[in-house]
Structure formats: structure tokens, C-alpha cells
């Protein structure tokens, strides 16, 4: 098993773990965290694919690496919007959960 395979298996476990947190946690903030854990796993899988594509004197394929950078920035923007929505919900309703039965 090479180093990048170890990270590949790690990324598979991270996606599963994050998905589990996304489903079972009732609090939206924990769901946001779990979603970011999934994101880390997906980006890592990209990184493993990039590393395997090392050629032409580069340590990795620069195209997936650039896509991951773009992805990280978009993930941050989405997280910031989520947190904004969450704090506003808390301000308006005095609570920040996803129950609809009150």
C-alpha cells in the first residue's frame, strides 16, 4: 500500500463519517460541521487522484489541485451563508433547530 492509497482509504472513511454526523445530529451547527468533514474527505480523494497523476516533472496533476482550491473557497462561502442563516433563525425564533412542530 502506497502513501496515497492510505490517504485514499482515509478519505473514504471521512466521507462516511461526515455523512453519519450529517444524518444523526439534530443541531444545524453540528450538521454544518459534519458537511465540512465530508468536504474534507471529497477534496482529499481529489488530492489522491492528483498525486497519482504526477507527470511532466510535477508532484501532482495541477488541474485537480486547482479545482480543490476553488472548492475550498466555495465551501467557505457556503458555510458562511449557513452560519448567517442559523444566527438569524436564532435571533428571530430564539432557537436554532430544525423542528417544525411548534
Amino acid at each position, binding site marked *: 500500500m502506497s502513501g496515497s492509497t492510505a490517504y485514499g482509504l482515509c478519505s473514504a*472513511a471521512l466521507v*462516511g*463519517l461526515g455523512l453519519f454526523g450529517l444524518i444523526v445530529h439534530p443541531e444545524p451547527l453540528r450538521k454544518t460541521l459534519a458537511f465540512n468533514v465530508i468536504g474534507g474527505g471529497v477534496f482529499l480523494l481529489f488530492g489522491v487522484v492528483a498525486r497519482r497523476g504526477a507527470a511532466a516533472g510535477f508532484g501532482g496533476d495541477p488541474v485537480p489541485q*486547482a479545482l480543490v*482550491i476553488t472548492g475550498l473557497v466555495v465551501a467557505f462561502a457556503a458555510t*458562511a451563508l449557513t452560519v448567517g442563516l442559523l*444566527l438569524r433563525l436564532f435571533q428571530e425564533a430564539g432557537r436554532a433547530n430544525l423542528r417544525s412542530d411548534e
Partner: protein
Amino acid sequence: MAFDIGLAILVLGVAVWTIAGRDAFAAVVGFVAYGLLLALVWVRLAAPDVALTEAALGSGLTGGLLLAASTRLRRPETTAPGEESAAPLRFAAAIVCALVTAGLVAIVLLLPEPPPTLAPQAAANMAATGLGNPVTAVLMAYRAIDTLLETVVLLLALLGVWSLAPDRFWGGLPGQRHHADPEGVLTFAAQLLVPVGVLVGIHIFWVGSIAPGGEFQGATILAAMWILAAMAGLVDAPAVSRRWLRSMLVAGPVVFLAIGLIGFAIAGAFLAYPDSLAKLLIVLIEVPVTLSIAATLALLVAGPPARMPQQ
């Protein structure tokens, strides 16, 4: 090899802590550590540009944002008993997630041989851009349209955050004004660190054309320095209705789009650069884009307008 396996296990352990921890605040702290360890993994995967972005943005700014949110939501959000997911749901979720992981493991183990790669194409086209960093070349030339759209996505996210402001604060100042002890450690750290950090941010941006770095990493560091100064009460956020602020926010995408359109006239395609001018045009795009991204990131962390200038 042993280091890689150890690091992978460490990343998994911190991720388990982030997901399974009882307290939201502790989970966010776990997430920051998760991001920093991932940055180390990126170095091991020969992707220093991504490592810088992960450390600054994925771990630093995202962590700060979530830490602030977790303290503000802390009291009433503590889960009431009975709000926990039922055991059967947890069991079903565990099975589904194990299946997803198993599928991904199969994909990882069965990745095609020889691995497909675009590295030779990127290398062949890099000379034409005059850039020495292949990732920057991809971001600014080969896949420039992605980068252009991304700057627009950032602006849209900021508009979304701003639109959450109560009507009476529209156009006001984002977030709360922070006050720190002027003789305290935070103020001292901000006074000491901000000038150095700004220099580092500009350097990271500038060397991005030949070495690991670039506009996103540099802009994130610049944004972080502004946030630090604001937290120490040294600067206050400008009102979001200020014209100079709005010009700064849109300058990056506007210049990017304009040079992209000029590409039709001088190189025959959208976002195409003639070889002799490529590096100059890329730098002309990167400077306003860096400023716009830095301002957008800082304002995304600051949150929606929450007070009027005279309050």
C-alpha cells in the same frame, strides 16, 4: 510510508472527535485541528498550494466563523433529552454510511492504471502564460472561467449574508463592535502581528506566480489580519452602504470579466490572452481579484449588518 499511515489515522481520529463530541464548541475545536492536519496531508500529497488554502481558509477562517457561531448559539441550543436521533435511525444511518465508505474504498483500490493526468498539457501550456506555478497557471489561464465564476459565487454568498439583516439595519455596519483591553494581550498581538501578516499576505499573493501561493491564499491571510485588528478593536467595519467598499468588492470580478471580454478582440476567445501579454494581463486581473476576495472573506466572517453608524 509509516508516517502517512499514522497521519491518516490521526486525521480520522480528529474527525471522529468532531462528529462524536458531545459539546458543539469542542467539536469545532476538533474541526480546526482536522483542517490543520489535512493541510499536512496536502503537503505529503505534493500539493503545497492546496495546503496553504486548507490551513488558512478551511481550518482558520471556517474555524473562526464556526467558533463564534457556537458560542452565540450555545445556551439554548443544548440538545434537550429526547431530541437525540432514535436508535433505529442511528443504526440505519450507520449502515448507509458504511456502504458509502465501502463504495469509495472500492473506487480507491480500483483507480485506473496508468492514472489519467492532465499534467503534460498543463506543462505544455504553462510557458505561454509566463507563470512558474502550474496551479496558478491552471487557475488563471487553463481554467480561468472557474476562477471568474468563483469570485462571483463569493459575492453572491456575501449578498445572501447581507440580506439576512433586519430592515432597520440595512446598509449599516456588520457585526458588533469589538472592544479589547488596550493594554491587553489581544491588542498587543494585533499590533505586532497585523503589519507582519499583511506583508506575508502580499508576499504569498506575489510569489504565487512562480512558487506555492496565489491570490486565494494571500487574500485569506489579508482577511484574517483585518479580522484580528477588528477583534482587538483597532479598526471598525465600514458601513456596507459605502460606495468605496462596494467598488472594492466588485472590482475583481469586473476587471476579470473586462479582460476576459477584451480576449475576444486581441486573442480571439473569451479569457484568452495573447502570449506576449499573458503575464501582464494575469497580474492585472490578480491584483483587484485579491483585494476583492480579501474584502469579501472578511465581510463574510463579520456577518450581516447589525447596527447603524451612530449607534
